[in-house]
């Protein structure tokens, strides 16, 4: 095995072979963060169910019962729970992933591996939370006696769209955060903006028709609308919404990875 160490070029390649060679480190990072996550907590992984459930209760009281938000003919509790289950994971990856390279500065400074695995590990680790979230959601479906239809088989694709988009954004932000710690200040604000411009608490059908194509540029639109269609039988999202969501998610992921690779050689000198 021969390794050649040279000065970085301005636009380094994708280094996909390097990613494959170091794939085991990705699993180690995921395992480590999962092992640590609920240490010294009383209820442990149940937090992954309690968080969306308690938020669902609050929103159901205020937006469902009091404001009476239109929920496409399904109970608001189920309507909002579907959105919260996926959003909680996306929000977590956005925050954890964007700060991850700086947070793992000790590793970046002491050992070599493709740094892209740091934000990727945040995204993969969140799949465990998502599984618990879906478990809580299933309990709610039993309570309301709702049986998912066939489009539920598209759920993995919809989750993949959301995770690709948020991983792409966290590639951008985690690389920027190495040089500009402003990212950490921006994050809470950005998280809220993204949440309120996604159909989590309200239905995307309230957006005026002429603005719908613009609204669909947010990949969370197809993710949440698609999951509601599959799980609770709300109207099927149009094909344009699918296409826009998939294309934007792919563009975010690829451009984020390019940018990350471009900044990667300077990480250990700056972090």
């Amino acid at each position: 095995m021969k390794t050649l160490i040279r000065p970085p070029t301005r636009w380094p390649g994708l280094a996909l072979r390097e990613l494959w060679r170091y794939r085991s480190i990705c699993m180690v990072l995921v395992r480590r963060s999962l092992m640590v996550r609920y240490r010294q907590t009383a209820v442990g992984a149940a937090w992954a169910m309690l968080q969306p459930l308690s938020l669902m209760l609050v929103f159901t009281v205020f937006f469902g019962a009091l404001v009476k938000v239109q929920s496409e003919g399904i109970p608001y509790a189920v309507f909002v729970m579907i959105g919260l289950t996926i959003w909680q994971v996306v929000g977590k990856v956005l925050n954890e992933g964007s700060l991850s390279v700086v947070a793992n500065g000790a590793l970046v400074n002491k050992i070599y591996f493709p740094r892209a695995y740091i934000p990727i590990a945040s995204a993969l680790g969140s799949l465990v939370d998502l599984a618990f979230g879906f478990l809580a959601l299933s309990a709610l479906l039993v309570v309301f006696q709702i049986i998912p239809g066939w489009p539920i088989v598209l759920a993995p694709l919809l989750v993949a769209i959301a995770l690709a988009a948020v991983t792409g954004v966290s590639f951008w932000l985690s690389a920027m955060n190495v040089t500009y710690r402003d990212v950490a200040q921006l994050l809470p604000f950005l998280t809220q903006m993204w949440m309120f411009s996604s159909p989590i608490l309200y239905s995307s059908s309230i957006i005026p028709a002429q603005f719908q194509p613009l609204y669909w540029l947010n990949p969370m639109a197809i993710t949440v609308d698609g999951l509601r269609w599959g799980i609770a039988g709300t109207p099927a999202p149009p094909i344009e919404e699918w296409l826009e969501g998939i294309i934007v998610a792919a563009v975010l992921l690829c451009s984020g990875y390019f940018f990350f690779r471009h900044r990667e050689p300077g990480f250990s000198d700056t972090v």
Partner: protein
Amino acid sequence: MMTLGEAPAVRVRGLGKQYQIGAAPGSSNLYERIGAFLGQKSRAPRDPHPTIWALRDIDFALSRGQVMGILGRNGSGKSTLMKILARITAPTEGVAEIYGRVGALLEVGTGFHPELTGRENIALSGAILGMDRHDIAKVQDQIIEFSEIGKFLDTPVKYYSSGMFLRLAFSVSIHLEAEILLVDEVLAVGDAAFQLKCQQRIRQAVSEGRTALFVSHNLVSIAALCDSAIVLDQGVLRFNGPTAEAIDVYTREFLGMPSGARGVVTVAAASAPV
């Protein structure tokens, strides 16, 4: 030193690393950057960021099974050289070729997490340093025994004393199976008895035919462990040759000691019980 016909392990040609000093690299104020991007001149013209060469024009080669020491005062570029060879930081110029799997022991406790137990940290840190499951299973008992952690093995390491933590961390590092070892100052852990044990273990690893680059301020261990040594001074290679001569150059030119000091060091090395 490499002679013709020997298999190379590390070959370094014209290696250099330039650092910006003053500000963190690239962290010029965002407003200035936007201004510069728009083609404006910044209102208060400043010096461009001053730079220094932490390392320049470094050439050396190391053949398989050889142990090379790196001598130099603080700031001479030793750690920068190690970081480049470990691929942690990128060189500004030049090339390094490395033949084999590199294990970098630039700090004890790489990948350790305070919330995890000693046993868990052995597994995860080992994996982060590049061991696979079988490697770890093979050496786990040796690591535990070497570290003298005993009954604290299943306690989170955040409750360890600093000495216990260092012993465990070093034990993981030194059992790392790699073809080329980069070792930086990690010997300076634990009490005298544990340090001695560490040196013996490093000698054993080296006598098994491993290639190693070894940075230490301890001239006795350099003399005892290394086949050859290089001397760095302000980023420039000052000497490359037999260990005894390198120590002589280093003690005479940079420590201001008379040439006789070399004798003391080599005698001490010869009589050291390692």
